[in-house]
């Protein structure tokens, strides 16, 4: 079960010819796949393409009707390998993941796939996680396309263009026997728009037919001598076929403009930004009319040399708008024009920055520089600019006022107490080398925990401490989530540590989901989704590869127990990796699951108990030690309201879900007695009421007795 339900969006997948689809870009891709007669879909979740996987997971019945096989791959490598079905059979297949992180993982299979070549259209939907909102290293997928000779589509970021690109991609793949990557940037994946749908197509050739009629072609296998033939085939057939198809079908678009002595060549994904920047300079309008000619590369690899030469011929200068480093396209354009002996000047990374997202402001400034250099007479409209505002004293003063707000653990997150306990363990036993991994647990890097020194990739936390061991030295600690564990970590992390008798500590954060990507189920999930096999304990898996020292904690909120387990793991004389499996359900998903059930039960009149935490403001001294060890968003501060108490006191707001971490922390760290837990009993039973009545009578009498003697000051 994913964090979000796609029940409504699933219905959009049923739209037929002439209907209008309204929704997110990545969901439009899902519909486009079904319209293209895709035979199978696989992938690995991750922003910004998680929703493609999530919506298909919720659409099992539609997929069943069409005979489309869908699976959630164990990793991007598994997803890429799935495309092997299109090598020998004319089945259309699509896979998806976030790039470049996922493409790295997939690249072994992708190299083999593109060497073998494909018969059925093979399309890889790439969520290019680059620029603002990205959570990964800033690299380009473009390099993968070049090294493996796969084609790369980068369509204009509107739904009709994206949908057309999906359809084109399958045809291009089949025309050139080459897998095709379709790149969508973060905002394009999340863009809300509309397009006119077509009927879904049943696959022309199905997985079933392939299984019943197996084909074997030794020339498709990557083994000498075929592998040498593949290389020649790529250069002599597949590439030229692809170039011809792109040219013949006009996949790249040219928009004419009055100022034909200049031109702009751009990646399709840059189109809306470039139009807006031109609009700011008075050179285009909101309907896409432009005064400067544009050549839009909806296919950024391979390039169609003749089309580029034709666009540039006779122009004084062209600007290449290419996001990301290095400037592969600009270099290629230089080669194209040199070979064609065309002397048009090429601007690119000299007026635009080499690296970083091409935001509206960056594009506007780059275009201004380009026109200024080659025809400043075009610059008569000043582009919108925040410069004056940003230079004002009032705005400059904000630099020291507005605090940064990086992402953090959610309210009630079961991972927080793990890091609270780790903080306390380090206070006792000294600072340790701690390796991070990919997942929500990486938020421990930030305040208040400041835990984690490196991250090497998904499921690679433990192996990133491989070298970090010396007899008698403090042990290295590696943190890894259940997502990373099943993706890569079982073998490269645990198996590697067992085999090499690593002396370190591995903390496996088991929150029942691949939580950071949106709460998808994995092998060890406790849910029982139809068509998936779950409930395979991590504990069994690590023992299965030979781990001996394994401790499982089923309630991470027990900070005292977590602390004791860390203490033991860091000091025991046992050899081999010390593995702590810290299990508690992701609170976002748990709330989503339990809250409606709870409210329904209360409505039915059942006795239900809801915990909530609070701080006694007159006991709190305003030292904020609790916040430094907890970091819960719902644990904040408020003015003390007491002239004698100068600092703000801790306070818990209404978003508290009653996880208990703050109380456990104050208890384990011996902080202070300010915290209380209030169990709110809805629909109490007669016995509850009687007992409460009895208690409050006695307690009330004792309280009244003392109150009556108390001399005090009333305000």
């Amino acid at each position, binding site marked *: 079960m994913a964090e979000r339900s796609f029940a409504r969006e699933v219905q959009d997948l049923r739209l037929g010819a002439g209907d209008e689809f309204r929704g997110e870009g990545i969901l439009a891709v899902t519909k486009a796949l079904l319209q293209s007669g895709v035979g199978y879909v696989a992938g690995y979740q991750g922003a910004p393409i998680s929703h493609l996987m999530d919506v298909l997971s919720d659409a099992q019945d539609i997929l069943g009707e069409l005979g489309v096989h869908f699976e959630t791959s164990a990793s991007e490598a598994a997803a890429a390998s799935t495309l092997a079905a299109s090598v020998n059979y004319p089945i259309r297949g699509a896979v998806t993941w976030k790039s470049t992180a996922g493409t790295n993982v997939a690249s072994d299979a992708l190299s083999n796939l593109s060497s073998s070549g494909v018969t059925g259209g093979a399309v890889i939907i790439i969520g290019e996680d680059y620029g603002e909102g990205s959570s990964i290293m800033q690299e380009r997928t473009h390099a993968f396309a070049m090294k493996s000779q796969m084609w790369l589509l980068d369509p204009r970021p509107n739904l009709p263009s994206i949908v057309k690109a999906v359809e084109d991609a399958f045809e291009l793949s089949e025309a050139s026997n080459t897998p095709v990557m379709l790149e969508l940037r973060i905002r394009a994946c999340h863009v809300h728009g509309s397009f006119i749908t077509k009927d879904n197509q049943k696959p022309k050739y199905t997985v079933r037919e392939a299984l019943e009629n197996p084909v074997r072609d030794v020339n498709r296998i990557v083994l000498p001598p075929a592998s040498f033939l593949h290389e020649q085939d790529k250069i002599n057939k597949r590439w030229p076929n692809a170039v011809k198809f792109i040219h013949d079908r006009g996949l790249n678009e040219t928009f004419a403009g009055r100022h034909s002595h200049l031109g702009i060549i751009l990646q399709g994904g840059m189109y809306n930004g470039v139009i807006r920047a031109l609009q700011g300079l008075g050179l285009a309008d909101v309907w896409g009319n432009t005064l400067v000619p544009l050549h839009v590369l909806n296919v950024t690899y391979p390039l169609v040399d003749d089309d580029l030469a034709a666009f540039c011929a006779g122009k004084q200068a062209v600007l290449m708008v290419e996001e990301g480093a290095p400037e592969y396209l600009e270099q290629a354009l230089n080669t194209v024009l040199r070979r064609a002996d065309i002397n048009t000047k090429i601007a690119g990374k000299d007026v635009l920055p080499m690296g970083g997202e091409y935001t509206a402001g960056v594009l506007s400034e780059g275009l201004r520089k380009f026109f200024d250099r080659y025809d400043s007479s075009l610059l008569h409209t000043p582009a919108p600019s925040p410069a004056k505002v940003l230079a004002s004293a009032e705005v400059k003063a904000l630099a020291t006022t507005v605090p940064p*707000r990086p992402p953090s653990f959610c309210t009630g997150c079961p991972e927080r107490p793990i890091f609270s306990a780790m903080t306390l363990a380090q206070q006792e036993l000294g600072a340790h080398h701690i390796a991070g991994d990919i997942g929500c647990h990486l938020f421990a890097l*930030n305040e208040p925990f400041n835990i984690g020194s490196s991250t090497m990739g998904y499921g690679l936390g433990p192996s990133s401490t491989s070298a970090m061991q010396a007899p008698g030295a403090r042990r290295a600690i590696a943190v890894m989530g259940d997502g990373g564990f099943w993706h890569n970590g079982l073998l490269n992390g645990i198996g590697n540590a067992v085999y090499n008798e690593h002396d370190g500590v591995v903390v496996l954060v088991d929150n029942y989901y691949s939580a950071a990507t949106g709460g998808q189920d994995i092998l060890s999930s406790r849910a029982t989704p139809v068509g998936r096999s779950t409930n395979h304990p991590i504990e069994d898996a690590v023992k299965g590869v030979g781990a001996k020292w394994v401790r499982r904690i089923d309630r991470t909120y027990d900070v005292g127990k977590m602390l004791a387990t860390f203490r033991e793991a860091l000091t025991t004389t046992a050899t081999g990796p010390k593995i702590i499996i810290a299990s508690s359900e992701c609170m976002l998903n748990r709330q989503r699951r339990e809250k409606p059930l709870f409210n329904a039960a209360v409505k039915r009149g059942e006795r239900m108990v809801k915990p909530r935490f609070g701080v006694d403001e007159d006991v709190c001294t305003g030292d904020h030690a609790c916040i430094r060890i907890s970091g819960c968003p719902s644990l904040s501060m408020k003015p003390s309201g007491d002239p004698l108490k*100068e600092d703000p006191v801790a306070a818990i707001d209404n978003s508290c879900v009653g996880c208990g971490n703050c109380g456990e922390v104050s208890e384990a760290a011996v902080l202070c007695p300010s915290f209380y837990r209030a169990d709110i009993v809805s629909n109490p039973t007669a016995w509850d009421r009687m007992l409460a009545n009895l208690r409050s009578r006695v307690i009330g009498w004792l309280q009244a007795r003392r109150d009556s003697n108390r001399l005090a000051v009333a305000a």
Partner: protein
Amino acid sequence: MELAQDKPIAVAITAMGGQGGGVLSDWIVAMAEANGWHAQATSVPGVAQRTGATIYYVELIRPVAGKHPVLSLMPVPGDVDVVVAAELMEAGRAIQRGLVSPDKTVLVASTHRSLSMLEKIKPGDGTADSAPVLAAAASQAKRFVGADMQAIAERTGSVISASLFGALAASAALPFPREAFEATIRGAGVGVTASLAAFAGGFDAASGIAATSAEPSPAIPRPVGGNDSQRRQVAALFDRAHAHLPTAAHSLAEAGIARLLDYQDLAYVEEYLHLVERVAAHHPSLAPEAARQIAVAMAYDDVIRVAELKTRASRFDRVRKEIGSTAAQLVDTTEYMHPRVQEICATMPAGLGAFVERSPLLCKLLGALFDHPRRIRTTTLAGFVPLYFVAGLKSRRRTLLRHQREVAHRDAWLAVVESHAPQNPALALEILKCRRLVKGYSDTHSRGSSKFDKVIGALPLLAGRADAADWIRRLRDAALADADGKMLDGAIATVRTL
């Protein structure tokens, strides 16, 4: 070819992950489409959706037959028509990003604060100052519509996206009437009644119709409880404070009197006033801080005090109010406590406590018996009665080990204050204020005390310097800036080089 002059309406929503910025964005899109407009929305939630700062962006344009608009996927700095900020600092961040322009931007912001981690982890008051953000909002936006939208949402049992949507409607920044906004909320079909109430609250607040709250009139303290003679004595103590202390110190002295009367008894208040008057006699500028800090020092947080605060009837009522339980619900309260051997010894008569502390064997025994985390259910008799008994030890407080130590610490501190007061009242004032460093319980208390000792210990290094008071203030600020005292150690190292 002539270029068209139509421009889309650009709306940026800045929020924190989990605040419902996406809901607001969806509502705007749904409303625009329902009214025949073309809408495009984007976001970059990614990991930021986990409580980090994030942004949603919407463009709206009136469609023209046969044409497709090319809209931006990100806000263009200097070219945004409406910015909706779901928190004050996020409004500040939007201004810093250049999204707010004096010639075009309507800024609709909730003025409440949701404190960032960096603000919360300071041992002192790390709260960022709201004033510069409010000033920038007022000066840089074409129109600034600001109100506490979170409070409105909470009051109506809804979420902030609904009250902000109301404020957006009231701002008239979008070309849709109020009915169109409300129809959108109804159309979404989730929590409609509460959302509409929050919407109306947001609308009114943004229209300047504030729910009027009467300013609380300054209360005149009056004694309650006890007998007539006792009440007369309390009144006399107030009169004495008013007569002997400068006006600037009156309200703090009143608070001090009230606190210490509540904490102990009339004699203790007399002791307090005596000390405050003695310090204030050196220089009137010392009076307010003397009244505050001596009260804090004398009302130290011991187990008796905690037990008393936790067992009061008024506290039971406050808990019910804070957690918002209804009369039909029962509330069971559990306290998280962890008494250590130190606290147990400190609650013994001075001689006995000191004796036990000196005996490792007894300490170990006591530790094994009592030094455990304890969850005390104060709503049951088994939990309430022991705490009630501990609170009852108040009458013996003066004989206990903790009191002896607190008095010694207090007297030593005041001696230092008074040794500097005649020649350098400014320095004496700063030393008085250093008492603020001692707070918290157990380890936190020890760390605070050690910082206090370090700052006081730096006094000889500053002997004879005209700027000694300034230095002590700097050291105190450094001590409050972080928990482990690194800033303070650095500052003291600097003092050593003077």
